[in-house]
């Protein structure tokens, strides 16, 4: 039995505005270390909502969430922020880099926030990750001066900076052309296979999902296959 990274126990969620709608019903699953998991489902099936709950950003749900066998439910805002900082890496559909900073600085920010390494060390680690993703030549550019595909790779580098337990992606290839999508997918694949990086990616791209290690399929707020 491999180490369990993430566990969802009986997670329910409703939206209350304007009328109460059941979005997630009794979600139960576990993810173990090194797994490359994709979550698929039609638009509105609640997969993004689930991801935000799993990422600790959304705390308005019933049930229990454990990351690294630690109960997340009921923790304070600051504690959750620290867990996101140290244990979770994010890649979003719309790359979400901070335009005020250089590429290198963007990658470094979560590392500086964690404050585990000195600044020079964080910078070195950021460069390592940029190099691994083949974009180290962009390091000194401002974040808004690079292309969409490059931004997404910078976002992945940023997600990796603190050696997270799990990387979560919300349609990370949804906004990219085919070539860049494949590039990003290859990066994920390599992370999972050679670095034993756990990945949880929400997508509606079937071909993307087919190539991942495990597929969780959702429909109407329930898991129908995992």
């Amino acid at each position: 039995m491999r180490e369990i990274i993430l566990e969802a126990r009986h997670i329910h969620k409703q939206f209350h505005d304007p009328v109460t709608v059941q979005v997630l019903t009794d979600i139960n699953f576990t993810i173990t270390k090194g797994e490359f998991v994709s979550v698929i489902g039609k638009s509105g099936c609640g997969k993004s909502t689930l991801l935000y709950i799993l990422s600790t950003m959304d705390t308005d749900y019933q049930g229990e969430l454990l990351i690294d066998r630690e109960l997340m439910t009921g923790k304070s805002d600051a504690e959750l922020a620290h867990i996101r900082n140290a244990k979770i890496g994010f890649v979003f559909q719309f790359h979400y880099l901070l335009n005020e900073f250089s590429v290198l600085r963007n990658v470094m920010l979560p590392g500086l926030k964690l404050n585990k390494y000195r600044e020079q060390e964080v910078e070195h680690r950021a460069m390592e990750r940029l190099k691994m993703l083949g974009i180290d030549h962009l390091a000194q550019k401002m974040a808004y001066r690079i292309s969409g595909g490059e931004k997404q790779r910078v976002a992945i580098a940023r997600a990796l900076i603190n050696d997270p337990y799990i990387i979560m992606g919300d349609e990370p290839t949804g906004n990219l052309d085919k070539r860049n999508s494949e590039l990003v997918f290859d990066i994920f694949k390599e992370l999972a296979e050679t670095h034993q990086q756990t990945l949880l990616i929400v997508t509606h791209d079937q071909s993307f999902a087919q190539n991942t290690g495990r597929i969780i399929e959702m429909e109407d707020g329930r898991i129908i296959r995992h």
Partner: protein
Amino acid sequence: MNGKLIIGIARSLLLARWRQTLVAAVGVTFSIAMFITLLGFMNGLNDMLDGLILNRTPHVRLYNEIKPTQQQPVNLSADFKNSYNFISSVKSGISRQEIYNSGPILKAVKADARVLGATPKLTAQVFFNEGTIDITGVINGVDVEEENRLFNFQDYVTTGHAIDAKNVANSIILGKGLADILVADIGDVVQITTVLGERFSLKVVGYFQSGIQEIDKVQCYASIGTTQKLLGKPNNYMTDIQVKLHDLDMAPAVAKEYASVFNIDAEDIQTANSQFETGSNVRSLISYAVGITLLVVAGFGIFNILNMMIYEKMDSIAILKATGFSGSDVNRVFLVIALSIGFFGGLVGLLLGLLFSMVIDNIPFVTAALPTIKTFPVNYNPLYYFIGGSFSLLTTYLAGFFPARKASKVDPVEIIRGK
């Protein structure tokens, strides 16, 4: 170093929109500069106007008032104790203007630790003879050196040297208005007649200008010795003792004490010039009110700009939160932004205020009424700079408080979802 990181983020956010930042900072700069200039100028004027009267007014004046005795002999008599006594035509006959026992009193007052200095004074009513016309005047006999030290006498002697009144025998410093009437130049001799009918010749050694026309037409100064000679009195004769204290605020208490100890009339400066203090206070109050209004307006400017910035930076805030910055971190980022606008804007404002004050300080301001003033008066009290500086930080903190709290409450899920 979390603090360093937060300051770094704040700095990047600020510099990314440096135009907005500049506008906000200029608002603070302007209001602080005006606050400083206004207060400096207002208080400079206050000090000058106060100085006009207060510098030359003794803090406590000891004198003998000519008045009838309160206890008439009939009231003291045991025989008429139980009757109503009607006395008409009461005269203050036997009272004298001279201070009794003046030497020891002067000595005792000078020995008092609270007293900066005390100087005797006496006044003589005279007539200046100009041809066939007699012009009334008052000669104040003063101890010139002490008068200079305690009451800045030399400042008001616009022509000639005050000390000549002492050094030149039988000399007089004429009021400027009186000198104009008498057409008396420096070095001329004026004829006077005392109330006792004796005639004297006095040499004009200077002009005195107080800034108040009516006074300058009447008042003259001479040394104590000269004045005593005019009155035909011995050299221990004096009608006033002027006392200057170290602390102005103690005057009423000291006056009361001296009145009972020396059995003399004593008047303190607060009673004599109460209207001046009221005027000063009101002027200060107005300048503070205007300055604070300016700062509050600048504060609203900062509030607006920060609010706008937060709407613009929603994505950045969401991403900061998603990558592990807590609400309080974001809150601090925006407070640092607000405070640095306040700090740098305020700092430049203080310097600019100093510059404006110096410019005003050098604008010529010549008026016959104020002989000692050549340029506009400005007060450079560091307290105003301290108040201005801390107030700029306070307003910007308050202006940043609500936007920062709003930023800290941004829900990253909503922003990321909303795209």
